[in-house]
């Protein structure tokens, strides 16, 4: 099968991969670059578990061709923050019990990150819309929304200063 070389900047680091024309960004990230923090929940754009930020916008990696990411910047969950330097969102998810099985978490946190970068002060409706592409079967979403709301408040420099929508 013919392959094409691509360069992707994954979480700040340029990487090279040889991909086929039909290969999805999800497969390239997982199988070739071993980015297993990007989860594969359905491979068909339904669940959002594979959400990554591509050139500043959240996308389903399973609906994006790997070649479309050539020369672009991709942020996965590991690019949002690390154990040593977690993002306020990541800390907030743990503190709010917003994680149960954890399989949707990489996609939800990445969607939330993209949301807060575009809109640092979202109201609850905007948060719910912002993560509406991410299915979570465990939590009923309540604690997830609370965690994002709290992280947004922290980003603005204070917990408890948020306005309830």
């Amino acid at each position, binding site marked *: 099968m013919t392959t094409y070389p691509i360069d992707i900047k994954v979480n700040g680091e340029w990487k090279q991969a040889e991909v086929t024309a039909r290969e999805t960004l999800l497969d390239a990230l997982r199988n070739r670059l071993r980015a*297993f923090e990007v*989860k594969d929940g359905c491979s068909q754009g339904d669940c959002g578990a594979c959400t990554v930020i591509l050139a500043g916008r959240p996308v389903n990696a399973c609906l994006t061709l790997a070649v479309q990411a050539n020369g672009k910047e991709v942020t996965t969950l590991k690019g949002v923050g690390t154990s040593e330097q977690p993002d306020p969102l990541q800390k907030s998810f*743990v*503190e709010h*019990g*917003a994680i*149960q099985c954890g399989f949707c*978490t990489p996609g939800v946190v990445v969607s939330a990150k993209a949301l807060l970068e575009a809109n640092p002060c979202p109201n609850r409706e905007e948060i719910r819309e912002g993560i509406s592409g991410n299915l979570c079967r465990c939590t009923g979403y*309540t604690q997830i929304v609370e965690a994002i709301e709290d992280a947004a408040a922290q980003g603005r420099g204070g917990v408890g200063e948020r306005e309830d929508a």
Partner: protein
Amino acid sequence: MNDDRFDVIGRVTRRQDGHAMVTGRQLYSSDISLPNMLQARVLRSPYPHARIAAIDTSGAERLGAVCVTPEDVPRVKYNERQVSVPAKTYRDRTVLPDKIRHVGQGVVAVAARTEALADKALDALDVGFESLPAVFDPHEAMRDGAPQLHDAVMLGETVLPIERNIACSREAVEGDVARGLEEADLVVENEFTTGRAYHGQLESKAVVCRPEADGGITVWATTQSIHNTRQLLGILFDIPLSKINVQRVPIGGSFGSSIQMNSSVAICVALALKAQKPVKLVLTREEDMYDHCKYPSNIHLTYGVKRDGTLTAGHLKTVVDIGGHNIQAYPLLGCMAGWFVSLYRLPHLKFEGTAVYTNKAPACAMQGYGNPQVTFAVESMMDTIAEALDIDPIDLRLKNYVGLGETFWGQGPTVRSVIRSCGVEEMLLKGRAMVGWERRGSPARKTGRFRRGIGVGRGFHTSGTGAPTPGEVIDYSTAMVKINEDGSVDCLTALMCHGGGTLEAGAKMVAEELGVPLDRVGISPSNTRSTGYDVCTHATRGVYCGGASLLRAAQDVKKILLDFASRIIDVNPEALKVQPDTSRGQGFVFLPGAPAKRISVAEVAKTAQIKGWGSIIAVVSHRQVNCPPCFVVNFVEVEVDTATGQIRPVRAVAAVDAGTVINPDLAAGQLEGGLCRGIGLALLEDTTYKPDSGELTCGGYLTDYKIYTAQDMPSLEDLSTFFADTYEPSGPFGAKGVGEAANNATAGAVANAIYNAVGVRLTEAPITPERVLSALTREAEQLQQGR
């Protein structure tokens, strides 16, 4: 909720695995990648019922693929689920089938170097099918002359002929229902159905198998029971259990979908043994949807009741469409009987259940195991009775519910225990105030396009399947606890966490008992070779049964700790206490009132090691001899759009009586998630089939199946949860379960809320806009004819 009796129990703490999950370091079965690993794919039947006429794998083999066909696999008949005792286990399937019984059933499996090559090999397979007439409706399946799915199955070691596609049936009788109905002032009856909902766990089922040099295998699989998976693989492939190591891997949600050893596990092992290389098999979402679904229900329910609201008799008849294979229909029917008789006191009762094969995906446990189905019918009927007798629905429930001191059939007729903790009244009264029950009003007085209604649903789930005597269901857990030489603690158990914080709760119990700071209590990685048997993390037993085994081991360890400490500080061990000192990250053993008689847990453990007294370690296998109900109450407010039939949940109150709550934030999360799935069962979820082809109408797409997104749930201000203030005497630190209870009462509450809004009783779930509109139209026509 902080409880002064405890240091860590009941306090909000950060879960140990949380940081791995939010930073992307948590790996699931589908993330396992081994050197030289082959990727597997399975050719699946496009026919719902067919004979396999011919299989040619030469094309695939020419591409370098390893193939297994029904000829290559053991012919042992097995049941994916190994929880019932062998004599009560129905066995009707093989690793690859002798005949096709539903669309999506695997026929031939291939493994190749890459997924792309495996896909090519799949295309190169040549399989001939002879299509047979199929049957999709359980009532049609029971008619004479209907296509037969199975001629005979195994029950234990006995060959059991199958007639009219009836997989099994069960009856339970107490008193005389006919007499009870005669004694009633009012007899009500109705039919209720619920759909074949799909688990929709976010991680589709996955498995990796690595053959080992000694002829054994190592397996990483999505499963709720590593030990049952190992036992079954041992039987199927004739490998000593000492050479089968099933690793506990985090699971990406389950809800019952991996309560059994999924069929893909055995297929993957067959491929790996043949290839003598590691093989990975991850189901596509479509394959996963054809693998399992929730047991649907079709319930005919009759109640007799006195004018004052006292129930005199209850009769529940159900037919369950189990699909192509019988996974656990026999215990299911027993449990449905148990849920029915344990909801409300019935002087005379009868339960009749029949499980029927059809050419559809096999049904298995899904959160509640027949309970949401039965509770939907019963709770709907309670409101019907309340209205007919002009009694407040809450008062009717308070009058008849099975509570303190009464008998609970926690797992069908053979598993009974006495209720020793009960928060039903507290939850009903508090929830009534929180939801604003007085606002509900009468549907007759509601007008306009959008009408709101409030409904209540009450229920419970069992906490495990323990009982004083051994029953038809196996239930015990094994745990090892040890204190390390620095005063930290390791907990080893085969218990699973499905996300609700089960292992976290176990660690908290151990920390509490040993007086060691929680962050020094570790949950060890676990596999079948290093742990004792644990039946399965199912039946809402994780905290109550599994936690109790950890607590028992911690109690044994504490005895050793105090004994060793008494040797060092020369105090009678009976007089010693242990308490954590979080600032020093240590537990301390001390004699109250004597500051000099104090020593750290680390120093005791290290001294014991140096002096050769031995490790501070204990292993316990523990069976709970009760299965107390964790009660639940849901209040739901909905808005019905009478023009479109759309129903929008707008407010909810969810409460659980879980005894002592170990992880309050995680338990609240379980309530919220359970409510979400319960509303889904009520309004949205079913796997329907195309009648001509036997294919799923959703085509294997979650978007077309539909589950709730964040935008569909009641918004934050409008969703409240709370816990009843109870203590279960038989539970570890007074705890019972939460898990399945969280969704059991929801569908009934939703149906009652719809009735309160529009005055029409919807009995078929999912209550889709189409069903609402047609019911509203029917009602309007009847009103017109009445005039």
